[in-house]
């Protein structure tokens, strides 16, 4: 989880070049299993020179693998706050950018420390961008209620190619490879083995591949089409496909609004069964490893008034977003996000 967040930190650092700004967001997550999470986070981006940019992010949430389970055993509520902080520095060398960064997150039952380095280069008058990166993570799950600490090491590599084809067409292809070694069983979720509820046992090594293809297409009348497709496969035989389709539109000079539909489908792992008998080597009660389909609908609006507003400087914007997620496992969640972007000098 941490790795993709760091990758996105790097991505934002690259895009926001020469845009000093502060993003403050507040997320309210609620699902049908009883998890309610309020998460503030802050993203700060600052250029120290025309070649060096610093990006710092700090957030608090409780959305983790543990939170879902806390709600089951602690229906009166359980605090499982997660604090996450990341920082990256990007330096330009001609048409290339080099980024070095890291992330640290800590919650009651899990600590993750990640280091990341990435390179990107613009070719062909910035019509083509190639990027590659590597991240290494040391993670420490803490079992419950025994408090025994396990360990996990994750290595992640990605490469992406972005191509502008016309004035209004850009595509991106990406490939990511992730290898996790160490404790990977969910210590909170149980499954039935010989009619006894038992904590699962997952393999200690997982190799994960993800390939993506994305399109952004400008349409007439200040409307934009977004298409994202991802195909995922791992050596636990979990395969998934994700397709997201979105449309955005400019309403005048101050409002951008749009919606996205995302469809997700995954198979279960090779060792998944609704219940087990005998002496299985691997078994799991982790719903993330079950087969299921999911769909979500998101609506968003961004307002950028022409002048200063709410004591914020001109150029500030306000964002509101709501997502409704539903899966065939019965899981339903609603996520509301409100954000403010403040340009800095």
């Amino acid at each position: 989880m941490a790795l993709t967040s760091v990758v996105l930190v790097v991505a934002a650092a690259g895009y926001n070049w020469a845009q000093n700004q502060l993003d403050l967001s507040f997320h309210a997550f609620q699902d049908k299993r009883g998890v309610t999470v309020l998460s503030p986070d802050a993203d700060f981006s600052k250029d120290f020179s025309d070649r060096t940019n610093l990006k710092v992010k700090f957030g608090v949430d409780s959305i983790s693998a543990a939170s879902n389970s806390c709600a089951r055993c602690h229906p009166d509520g359980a605090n499982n706050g997660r604090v996450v902080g990341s920082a990256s520095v990007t330096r330009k060398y001609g048409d290339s950018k080099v980024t070095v960064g890291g992330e640290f997150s800590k919650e009651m039952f899990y600590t993750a420390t990640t280091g990341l380095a990435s390179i990107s280069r613009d070719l062909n008058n910035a019509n083509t961008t190639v990027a590659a990166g590597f991240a290494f993570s040391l993670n420490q799950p803490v079992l419950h209620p025994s408090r025994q600490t396990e360990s996990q090491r994750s290595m992640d590599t990605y490469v992406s190619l972005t191509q502008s084809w016309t004035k209004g067409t850009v595509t991106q292809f990406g490939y990511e490879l992730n290898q996790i070694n160490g404790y990977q069983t969910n210590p909170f979720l149980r499954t039935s083995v010989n009619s006894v509820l038992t904590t699962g046992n997952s393999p200690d090594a997982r190799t994960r591949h993800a390939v993506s293809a994305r399109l952004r297409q400008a349409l007439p009348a200040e409307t934009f089409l977004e298409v994202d497709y991802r195909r995922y496969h791992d050596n636990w035989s979990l395969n998934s496909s994700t397709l997201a389709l979105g449309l955005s539109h400019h309403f005048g000079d101050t409002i951008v609004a749009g919606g996205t539909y995302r469809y997700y489908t995954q198979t279960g792992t090779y060792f998944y069964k609704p219940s087990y008998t005998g002496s299985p080597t691997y078994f799991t009660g982790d719903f993330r490893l079950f087969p299921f389909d999911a769909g979500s609908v998101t609506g968003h609006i961004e307002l950028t008034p022409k002048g200063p507003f709410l004591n914020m400087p001109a150029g500030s914007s306000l964002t509101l977003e709501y997502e409704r997620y539903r899966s065939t496992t019965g899981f339903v969640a609603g996520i509301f996000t409100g954000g403010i972007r403040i340009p800095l000098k």
Partner: protein
Amino acid sequence: MPRVGRVIFALAVVAGLASAGCATVKPWQRGLLADSCMVFDSSAETSYMTHWQEAREGSMGGFGVQGGGCGCK
């Protein structure tokens, strides 16, 4: 790596190398490409959304970084 993934990746590399030799969009024509709706992962909300999805689904990653935009120097 799954076969479909190998094919997509190979095509992407070939396309990228082929296109490296010919300019497509002129630097002064990148106004639309610089629009926030055309840039991949341009919002601070994306990171949060990805985080909670990976805590509830079995997959991860795959989406690249950077590229597109105004291409300014």
